């Protein structure tokens, strides 16, 4: 890999790790507080 590609790779993974970790934590924290069926996921739940 070129030097610039390695730099982009390192930066990309840092940003991705932070964004997904944040999203995953929120999804985990909020799922138990979900009271009623989320309308948009009605069919998914049925699946």
């Amino acid at each position, binding site marked *: *890999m070129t*030097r610039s590609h390695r730099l982009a*790779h*390192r930066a990309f993974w840092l940003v991705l790790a932070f964004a997904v*970790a944040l999203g995953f934590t929120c999804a*985990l924290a909020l799922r138990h507080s979900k009271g009623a069926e989320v309308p948009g996921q009605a*069919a998914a*739940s049925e*699946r």
Partner: protein
Amino acid sequence: MSAGFRAVQWNRRKLIYDAVLLAAIAAYILVFMAVGRWVLSSAKDPAEWDDLRIRAFGSCAFILLTTILSIGPLARLDRRFLPLLYNRRHLGVATFFVALTHGWFIVDWFLSRGKLRDLVGEVTNWPDYGKFIGFPFETLGITALFILFLMAATSHDFWLEFLTPPVWKGLHMALYLAYGLLVMHIALGVMQDEHHWLIPLLLGAAFVGVTGLHLLAGHRERVLDRGTDAASDGWLRVGPPLSIPDKGARIVAARGGERIAVFRDGTQIGALSNLCAHQNGPLGEGKIIDGCVTCPWHGYQYRLADGCAPPPFHEKLATYRLRLKAGLVEVDPRPLPPGTPAALSCAELA
């Protein structure tokens, strides 16, 4: 390595690799369905079978993508994983087809119940895009599937040569984005419906594992990328000739510069670009096999003397001037035109 393009350059290693891969996918699907049937003792209901096959293929695609993304950093950290890298593209194409099957089973689920409009409604319910819980997670999966398709469609060496290795490698970094989208596809999809603790545990462990490997390998590369200070005339010190392993290389780099692989083959020392012409693989981590510098990734070969691939191949690498000064090998970090003879013969090593 080939002088021309073929659909697939089959060899024994690739056949074994693909056979093991297909067997592993089939075994996973069968075990998932069997365990699922055992857990859901009332699986005579066709709806549950449909559900099982959707989840079997979906989880299989996620495991395959997790594996693909782990191979790169694992091979950087431990050479024993290099054989897995050799045919990684077939693993990627297989992942796309497994994910496509997962997608088709979902569409089929809606089609068989005459509810295709519900699926379209879920994806096009624009107000839901403003929510976090309730976000149309299907869109994340569809986007990831599209990226997987792009990766699979451009995985052939034709596209690698057409786009050039730096552009091709940059394009294939989109796979990381696909992985992030898939994690959120699961976190906002099945993880919200199924409250079993195993789902977040496995999902979190997979993501932490892959991310940790990439960050660890990246940290190690960062240390190497710092480079070394050049002498007043701009030359870089490599070290005594015998400090370069026979049939192997030492990698050096000027500050802010690209890496240079300094190889030794008995009494001959040569410096080549560390970037393989094929996929920009780390040539300096390869060995000299049959008299040629051999890339550890896919076995592309170059002559040490001039950086040219042996006939009938036509790839050429940039070479670098070398000199012996006070018993130390030094390299000029300014590259010579690809294919320029520049190797040094050290009679004292005879």
